[in-house]
């Protein structure tokens, strides 16, 4: 008991200072901090904006079509007189949720595949073949086809918005886990030879427990990096699908969909594509800067430098 507490008290501050050290490194990276501020700001605006700016995004008004930005309509209006600020706020909620949900699926799948491949020699060959095969799949054409294929049936069963949301999230998640799996596998291969894993093994811990409580916490950082990059690419993929007209249906404004709808009005209301494009770009840019910051903070070669 006393030995236990001694170990715990010795381990705890050590662990905390590790996290603090990472934060210290991260906060020195100006781009990463700026990215974090911008990202949090956009998330807050999108999450709480519709409560403050109470304009119905779907309300059409033929008398106020294609207006440039004004006091009444800060972002202007579209060809049906719908308010663009309200649409962008609602669209942001959907785009960010798609990015988040798809990223979670891809990270969970990637982590499980990577851990199994790294830990069990028997599974390694098979799983890595599967990973290679997924990497060779022409993802964009298949995504487009999959959307076309399942959109209507899911629409009928779950409803237009939820159906397409689930479809897009799942297909983006299922086709983007490969990089996480490769990174995790490499880390697990190195970690499983270490003494603490052998010790846990010798104490009779089951494989699942070793993987979940001993190995997983030690590979959180690379997972975090690939999660951030995964979210950025999921947001871009969703926008690309919508931009090709094969994402969300026209009545659901996502940032990509707003871009797609606005591109036929470049001559009349150019700001219509600038707003959603700016949001997508800022979000992706800030996420990528944060990813850079985390990676630099984790790289021991860069520690101690400015």
């Amino acid at each position, binding site marked *: 008991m006393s030995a236990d507490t001694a170990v715990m008290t010795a381990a705890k501050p050590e662990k905390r200072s590790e996290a603090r050290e990472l934060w210290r490194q991260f906060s020195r990276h100006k*781009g990463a901090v700026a990215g974090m501020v911008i990202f949090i700001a956009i998330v807050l605006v999108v999450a709480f904006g519709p409560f403050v700016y109470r304009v119905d995004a779907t309300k059409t008004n033929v008398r106020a079509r294609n207006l440039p930005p004004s006091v009444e309509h800060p972002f202007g209006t579209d060809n049906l007189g719908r308010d663009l600020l309200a649409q962008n706020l609602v669209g942001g909620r959907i785009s960010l949720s798609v990015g988040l949900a798809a990223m979670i699926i891809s990270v969970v799948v990637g982590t499980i595949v990577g851990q199994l491949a790294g830990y069990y020699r028997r599974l390694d060959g098979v799983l890595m*073949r599967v990973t*290679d*095969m997924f*990497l*060779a*799949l*022409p*993802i*964009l*054409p*298949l995504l*487009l*086809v*999959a959307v*076309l*294929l399942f959109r*209507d*049936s899911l629409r009928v069963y779950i409803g237009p918005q939820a159906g397409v949301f689930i479809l897009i999230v799942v297909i983006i998640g299922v086709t983007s886990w490969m990089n996480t799996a490769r990174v995790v596998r490499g880390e697990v291969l190195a970690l499983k030879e270490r003494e603490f894993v052998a010790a846990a093994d010798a104490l009779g811990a089951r494989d699942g427990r070793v993987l979940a409580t001993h190995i997983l916490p030690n590979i959180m950082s690379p997972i975090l990096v690939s999660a951030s990059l995964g979210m*950025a690419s999921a947001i*871009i993929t969703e*926008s*690309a699908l919508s*931009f*090709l007209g*094969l994402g969300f249906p026209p009545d659901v404004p996502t940032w990509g969909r707003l*871009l797609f709808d*606005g*591109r036929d009005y*470049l*001559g009349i209301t*150019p700001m219509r*594509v*600038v707003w959603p*494009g700016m949001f*997508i*770009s800022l979000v*992706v*840019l800030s996420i*990528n*800067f944060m990813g*850079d910051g985390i990676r630099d903070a984790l790289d021991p070669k860069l520690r101690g430098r*400015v």
Partner: protein
Amino acid sequence: MTQFLVRRIAVAIPTLLVISFIIFAVLDLAPGDPTSNLPLTISAETRASIRASLGLDDPFVLKYLKWLRQFMVYEPLALFQGATGIDLTPNSDPPRILSWQTRSPVYDLIAQRLPQTLWVVGLAYLFGVLLAIPVGVYSAYRHYSWFDQVGSFVSMLGFSVPTFFTGLLAIIIFSVQLKWLPSIYDTTLVVKDWPSFVQQVRQMIMPVTVLAFFNASQLSRFMRSSMLDNLGQDYARTARSKGLQERKVVWGHVLRNSLIPMVTLIALGIPGIFTGAIITEQIFRVNGLGDLLIRGIYVSDIPMVQSISFIFAVLIVVFNIIADVLYGLLDPRIRYD
């Protein structure tokens, strides 16, 4: 080396077979019916016979095997015949993969569209590479200088901002506001004299620039970090300490070694030229391969989509092997045993 190559190809073939099966299966499940766009006056019997003539009622496995045979045997034969004029099967006329939209061979359509994609998207890739290497080298050499700081920021910007936004922005600025460049790629333009050549160049400027900027941003980051890795290596210090000119150290030693991973990355990116074309061609309305694919998807022209998707998969697998082989050829430390 030969043994490695044989083994890689031996692995690639089952991979491609599995991929071809997935592509075929996914598309075969598609609800789209090629007769659904025909006029309603056509009777049910005629519809059924059209479906039968397209081979839609065959069992799934039979359809897959037929398609595979067409793709692997008949199409290469037709390609060979088209290129050399020698007919290897004079007695029979093997059925080719026909597009459901036009009833003409899919490969003829692809051959019509390929040049546009290669010119616009391929040229953008080439320019991207040519821009990325010097920028990456100079950024790494003057690490933390203002050039490096600005370059890193711009490249981060370049690969974070999606091309479908930069493309639209470019159209707004240069076509709508300034009216310098055409916003739509004129696909009927035939280059025959100087004015039409100028027009062709003018309509290529925007798509090529937008895409080249995107490619250069990605590649210059890799070039910079590869160069940084090598600048800190012992051999670079040795070369300097024995009194070699700085120019020779950088150009002769460090750059050559840094280019090794770049060459493989560039090779790996080439299939991306074609898949990336899907989006770029939609922005500027270029009638290339990506446009053909998108149109095929819209009207559920299954043979077309299957063929183009599978060609993309073949390109990815082939360039993966090429990248591995190049790596071995360029870096003597890597041995394939």
